[in-house]
């Protein structure tokens, strides 16, 4: 039979903040949320910064008073809200750790016993008897984490505390905290780290703007959250450049001309058969020009920029374009003509890009040296939409160029044989 140990009932919190002008502004951190946690469940709380996660945890631990609603907790409570914040620099590690335990409700004797365990775990030897101001950052964290590890109660409240210490100690910590968290009778943990939530928690609560967005099994909620954040990140990236509008960004193409040629139009479209430009479709670029001179070979190039205006690739004719016979077909003609090229599928991922045109020409008829013939002044915005293929990019979200590569797998013969045998 399940037994409710934490009951949150229509909990709300408003903060009254003094604004610069002296008037008092009310911000709502939590909007009437309710949930129940049964004995034996380990809950993760996720959400963006400012979504109310920490406020909720602080209300569970009684530090922040609700504006309305209530919290009921059954059993003893320990909280790991921060590590080493209350240490006093002039006191020794031992004194600080013992005070830490006393503040957390240990009796003097319990505090001494817990100190002995913490000191053993921290492995900093006699330094534990020196003032903590003499510690290195690493030692400081070792002591603080070791102290937190000794806290135990029916209900464990944990704010995100990892990401510290040297690698070896962190591994050791992870191992012990792993035991601690998975053996906790009931736990509520705030974290940004999806791995932590999935490893330690059975349930997950997703807060957005102070309200519950989703509650469910840790894996389901964390996955939904992760994809939503991923999408948002991409959409954010997608919106960014349109606001800046520097260097004619996002404006229609403006024709440009000089004595050699006129670039009259530039269009970017999805190749035939594709409804829109996606990662799978590839991209078609058309440049319409009017050529004014004979005995001139134009060498087109399209520079592609990402949303942060970093040039990420350049599309030029074949490497040795000056001897490219195909390019030479227009050498002795003038008038309207169209240059078309296609960017292969599976190169540019979902997002916003800009394209820029440059034409080059030979510096002199007898030399294979290119100089600029004309450059279009603006950059043309285009977008690559989300296609059918899910944008998994090896764990990173903001990668622009993602060519598909063939991977070959080589298995040593002796292993292959062992398998077949």
């Amino acid at each position: 039979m399940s037994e409710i140990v934490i009951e949150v009932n229509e909990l709300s919190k408003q903060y009254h903040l003094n604004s610069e002008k002296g008037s008092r502004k009310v911000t709502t951190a939590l909007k009437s949320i309710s949930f129940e946690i049964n004995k034996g469940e380990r809950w993760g709380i996720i959400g963006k910064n400012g979504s109310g996660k920490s406020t909720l945890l602080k209300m569970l631990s009684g530090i922040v008073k609700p504006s309305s609603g209530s919290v009921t907790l059954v059993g003893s409570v320990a909280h790991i809200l921060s590590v080493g914040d209350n240490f006093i620099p002039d006191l020794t590690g031992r004194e600080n750790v013992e005070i830490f335990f006393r503040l957390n409700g240990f009796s003097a004797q319990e505090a001494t016993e817990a100190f002995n365990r913490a000191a053993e775990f921290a492995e900093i030897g006699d330094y534990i008897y020196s003032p903590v101001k003499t510690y290195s950052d690493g030692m400081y964290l070792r002591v603080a984490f070791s102290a937190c590890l000794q806290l135990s109660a029916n209900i464990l409240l944990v704010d995100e505390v990892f990401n510290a210490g040297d690698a070896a100690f962190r591994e050791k910590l992870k191992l012990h905290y792993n035991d601690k968290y998975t053996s906790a009778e009931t736990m509520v943990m705030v974290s940004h780290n999806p791995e932590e939530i999935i490893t330690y928690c059975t349930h997950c609560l997703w807060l957005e703007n102070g309200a519950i967005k989703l509650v469910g099994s840790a894996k389901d909620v964390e996955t939904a959250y992760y994809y939503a954040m991923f999408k948002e990140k991409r959409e954010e990236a997608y919106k960014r450049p349109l606001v800046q509008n520097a260097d004619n960004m996002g404006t229609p193409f403006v024709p440009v001309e000089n004595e050699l040629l006129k670039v009259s139009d530039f269009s970017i479209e999805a190749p035939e058969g594709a409804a829109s430009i996606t990662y799978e479709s590839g991209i078609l670029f058309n440049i319409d020009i009017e050529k004014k001179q004979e005995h001139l070979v134009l060498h087109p190039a399209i520079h592609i920029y990402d949303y942060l205006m970093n040039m990420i690739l350049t599309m030029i004719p074949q490497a040795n374009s000056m001897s490219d016979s195909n390019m030479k077909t227009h050498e002795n003609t003038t008038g309207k003509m169209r240059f078309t090229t296609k960017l292969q599928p599976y190169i540019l991922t979902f997002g916003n890009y800009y394209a820029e045109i440059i034409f080059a020409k030979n510096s002199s008829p007898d030399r294979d040296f290119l100089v600029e013939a004309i450059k279009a002044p603006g950059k043309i915005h285009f977008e690559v939409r989300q296609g059918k293929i899910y944008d998994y990019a090896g764990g990173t979200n903001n990668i622009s160029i993602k060519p598909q590569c063939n991977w070959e797998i080589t298995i040593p013969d002796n292993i292959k044989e062992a398998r077949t045998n």
Partner: protein
Amino acid sequence: MEQKNSKPRIRVYHSEPSSVREYFFDFIKNRHLLTVLASQEIKSLYAQTYLGILWAVLRPLLLTLIFTAFFKGLLNIKTQSPYYLFAFTGMISWNFFSTIVTQASGVMIQRRDLIKKLHFPKLILPLYKIIVSSIEAGVGIIILIIMILFEGIPLHLNFIALPFFIFLNICCGFMLAVWVNALSIRFRDLTFLMPTLIGTAIWLTPVFYPASLLSPRLSTLLYFNPMAGVIEGYRYALLGESFPAWPFFISLGITLLMTMAGVWYLIQVEDEIIDYV
């Protein structure tokens, strides 16, 4: 390690402010914080000094020496007992008061680390500062008594009144500290104003001069400063001087009332503290 209780502890946090009764029980439950914080403070205050807690005596003693040279040497003020004892008694009492006010009135901001990490009745904070100040003052009073005996002045029966005046001394400091704490939640400026006011108020208190030095009308006014009566009271108990004049009891009554009102007000605004520190 956790003891298996048949009845698990149930905590309920809700939006209503706690009643004085609830607050009192919460205070009792967290009383260990008083000693933990006070001992932490004493340790860290005097950590890595050679003289340690003796500084609590040396500070008023040095001031007394300076003022003795000034008042006795230049102005030749007449007092019932030797001037340096007269002044040192005043200084110990005043120092006790001003330490409580300055230390305890900034404590909410000083210990915001605790307020943000732990649930406990905030009244504990000014009170633990009072414990720290009392220990320091206690050392001072012992040294003072030794000096008095060394001078050859016998202890009178008046001595039994000393705890009463020590209690009043604490009340005066606590009253101001509680109000400053409660009000400085909204008006942070107060925490800056207080040390200046205290520095000025020493001249409106008979620390270095006897109240009898003033005209009768002025000395009546002087006694509306509760610390005037407290300091004269110390001299009455320790040096066998005359008892403070009657207007002292008016300021005494006001002080006690204001202390209780301050505590009540602090309990009312308790929950807002975390939003402001």
